């Protein structure tokens, strides 16, 4: 055994690390056994952390892969890390093996050739993914092309405490009028937090007569005219926000305790099941419900991507594939666990697997797929970057 280990250590640096072929799944699982996968994922939500820990236990048991959750406060940290490693010439075994990613971070990494792939559509479980019905092949209008693998669907819902605010609101204009009548009872996470920027996009998508202009990259010519209504809206909203807009919650989950305390009546979430999960964890009162706008709300998929310099690509692919298994997807959708939407196609599942999903109690605050209504597309990421920058200059440093 000892000799084998020495031999392995001697051989390891030799094969210039030809990457494993994702299509040869047996080779992938064979190479994955014994690897350690550092999954860099946002660590501010304890339910997500628990879910990732469970994934770690399962892949260790089934494939011998050790999963370490590197808890980020901002996914951009991981992007920086890979970028700096590339600059420093660390091309074979970087610190990061897998990133929970989407949107601008994905666009940046793909453009800079920092990602391994394509691999996503070679994963065995890709066969049961709902590639037709869910936005898993474009990510904020950027083509995915197999460089990241989806694992959860998210859609904006508004979370309200019916004890203080019984009625739902049908549009962002209605939200503005409600906030003026009830100052201090609404807030959104501080951009550049992704939910905060999503709120800004949701405003824009809802108040623009024709949001299709957002599907193409922003230009100097279009930017000012298109965003002018957004700034007018925010100028009216901000003084009526919680703390008059002088402080913002750091993230979406940070707003739950504020609702529980009665500081906020209304907030937003990017996870239709999160409110029910929070009720189950005592984090929200059981009078909380969710709603979507009349025209629908923005939705997108969460993905996992593998950096080009990961030393454990096979292990990362095994984890990505496991995340797409009916077992993991049903667990993620269980509001008592995580409450994330599945990316799977129910019709492609076996009867036993479908039963896993049918057995789920969605929870009192979760809308059914029909009630969630139509999903509005994310704007091109270039919009978000500029809007977030502008927001910071206008509202982020002025108090």
């Amino acid at each position, binding site marked *: 055994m000892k000799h084998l280990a020495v031999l392995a250590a001697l051989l390891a640096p030799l094969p210039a690390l030809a990457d494993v072929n994702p299509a040869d799944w047996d080779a992938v699982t064979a190479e994955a056994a014994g690897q350690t996968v550092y999954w860099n994922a946002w*660590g*501010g939500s304890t339910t997500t952390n628990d879910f990732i820990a469970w994934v770690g236990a399962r892949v260790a048991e089934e494939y011998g892969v050790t999963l370490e959750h590197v808890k980020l406060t901002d996914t951009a*940290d991981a992007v920086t*890390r890979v970028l700096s490693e590339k600059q420093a010439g660390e091309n074979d075994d970087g610190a990061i093996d897998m990133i929970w990613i989407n949107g601008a971070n994905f666009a940046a990494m793909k453009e800079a050739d920092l990602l391994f792939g394509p691999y996503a559509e070679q994963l065995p479980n890709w066969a049961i993914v709902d590639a037709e019905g869910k936005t898993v092949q474009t990510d904020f209008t950027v083509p995915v092309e197999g460089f990241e693998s989806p694992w959860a669907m998210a859609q904006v819902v508004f979370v309200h405490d019916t004890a203080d605010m019984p009625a739902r609101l049908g549009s962002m204009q209605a939200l503005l009028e409600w906030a003026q009548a009830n*100052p201090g009872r609404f807030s959104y996470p501080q951009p550049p937090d992704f939910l905060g920027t999503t709120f800004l996009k949701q405003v824009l998508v809802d108040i623009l007569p024709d949001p299709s202009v957002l599907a193409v990259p922003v230009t100097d010519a279009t930017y000012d005219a298109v965003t002018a209504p957004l700034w007018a809206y925010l100028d009216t909203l901000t003084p009526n926000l919680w703390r008059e807009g002088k402080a913002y*919650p750091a993230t979406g989950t940070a707003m739950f305790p504020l609702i529980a305390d*009665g*500081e906020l009546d209304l907030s937003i979430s990017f996870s239709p099941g999160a409110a029910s999960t929070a009720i189950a964890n*005592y984090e929200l009162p059981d009078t909380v419900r969710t709603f979507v706008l009349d025209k629908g709300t923005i939705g997108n998929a969460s993905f996992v991507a593998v950096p080009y310099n990961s030393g454990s690509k096979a292990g990362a692919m095994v984890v990505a594939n496991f995340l797409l298994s009916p077992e993991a997807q049903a667990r993620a959708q269980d509001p008592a666990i995580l409450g994330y939407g599945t990316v799977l196609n129910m019709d492609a599942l076996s009867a036993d697997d479908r039963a896993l999903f049918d057995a789920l109690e969605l929870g009192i605050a979760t809308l059914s797929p029909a009630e969630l209504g139509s999903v509005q597309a994310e704007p091109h990421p270039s919009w978000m970057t500029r809007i977030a920058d502008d927001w910071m200059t206008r509202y982020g440093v002025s108090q």
Partner: protein
Amino acid sequence: MVRLVTYRRALPFLPVLTLLAMLGPVGAGLIGTFLPAFGHLPAAGLVGPSLDPFRDLFGWAGLPRAVMLSLSTGIVATAVSLLIVVLITAGWSGTRVFRVLERMLSPLLSVPHAAAAFGLAFLIAPSGWIARLLSPGITGWERPLDLLIVQDSWGLTMTAGLIVKEVPFLLLITLAALGQTDAKRSVTIAQALGYGRLTGWLKTVFPRVYAQIRPPIYVVLAYAMSVVDVAVILGPNTPPSLSVQIVKWMSDPDLAMRLQAAAGALLQLALVMGALGAWRLAELIVAAAGRRWIATGARGKLDVIVAQSALGFGAASALAILLGLVVLAIWSFAGYWGFPDAFPDELTLRNWMRHGPGTLAALGETALIAVTVASAALLLTIGCLEAEYRYRLRFGGGAVWLLYLPLLIPQTAFLPGLQTMLLNLGADVGRVPVMLAHLVFVLPYVFLSLADPFRAWDTRMGTIAAALGSSPDGVLWRVRLPMLLRPILTALAVGLAVSVGQYLPTLLIGGGRVATLTTEAVALASGGDRRAIGVYGLMQTGAALVPFALALLIPALVWRNRRGLRHG
């Protein structure tokens, strides 16, 4: 034999090695900050020199407020803590009240900054425990008021969070200095001349004490101006203080932002140096005014009121930490807890079951780093002190400042540079670099904690042992160290507590891979899950507190039949 010889040869070099361990990373980090600040970052294909980073920095709209916050929170926190400590010591030293305070010092000191900050936030927020206890009965509030208390734009809550942690530290330092000033006789004479206790102390003892506690006060000022974890938890965000913004820029995906971060770090360094200079000037002004005040011969009519209110503030700051820990504990066991209920609907073990395994993993990492670093620091310290004793080395007054130097350079000024430098060298991030970075901060505290008792040891014991045939090593191992068991364990506990509380070195040098209780707890701040924060905050406090308890307990057990050694 060979080993002994090399060990003896190594001994004279230990002071040099210790200095290198403390100042090397600081120097390297400053160079690593200086170059990118002037546009030189070859790793990103950028070659300087250029002033663009500074142009970008000064173009940032939030800069004036961020700079103001850094200055105001740092200076106010230091001045108020010092005022409270000086007035309490002046009004109460030698009394029974004072002895109670002394006994509370170690536990208060060992509470990590992050845990104390969380506790304070959970106490004084509009929906905090104080408001819950008073509502709706006394206040009539059915819902929390929309008041900007935590994260207020002026950084007042953040300043308060710093004060409650700096008061015990400065009090400890003052107590140590007090022992060498012959305070009691001075005050007795002053009182015999008709001066009040407080005025008499201020006029006769304070100048001597202040001369001794000046370096640690400067440390507090530099720390408070550049703190990150407390600012993340309690400080404003529109914009944040300069140090927090530097850390944000460091983590921007755009590498060019690192240049701006480096420029910000140099500005932070200049701010701290400027503030230290201003403080020195203020000292001269206060000294001149003080001499005039002494000359007036005022006996101190207001002594009682001043002493009472100082005690009130001191007690409030101690209470803020203790009640903060209580409310962390309640949240960690809380089921649903709505406002304005004074207590949760039910207490449950669920939160601990959920977060227990995660905290244990983080505790293991925390303990491994802390024990290694504190032991290394202890070894180097004992080696230095023993070398000083054996070779009759003399350190001038400047040597003390060398010890304080790594604590006077703001963390945000050299840690980003150190991270960039390690990366350029291709050194892997991880545990070992984190340990080296911790050593920079742990060494001075361990040294300062052990130096006085070590030097105060009665060298005649050594002479007797030598006369009985003991070698110098025998004297050290069989006489001196056992006699100094208690201060050695206390120094070790100080080192452990300092290491446990480190946030920025762990975060930046660990590259996110090294997850200690402190980094995990601060990461939870953004998620706002108070139950999880309660669990992590308590574990973090425990990790720092238990060593202090052991440092008291072990000597009492080992020397249970040696009364003279128990207080070492």
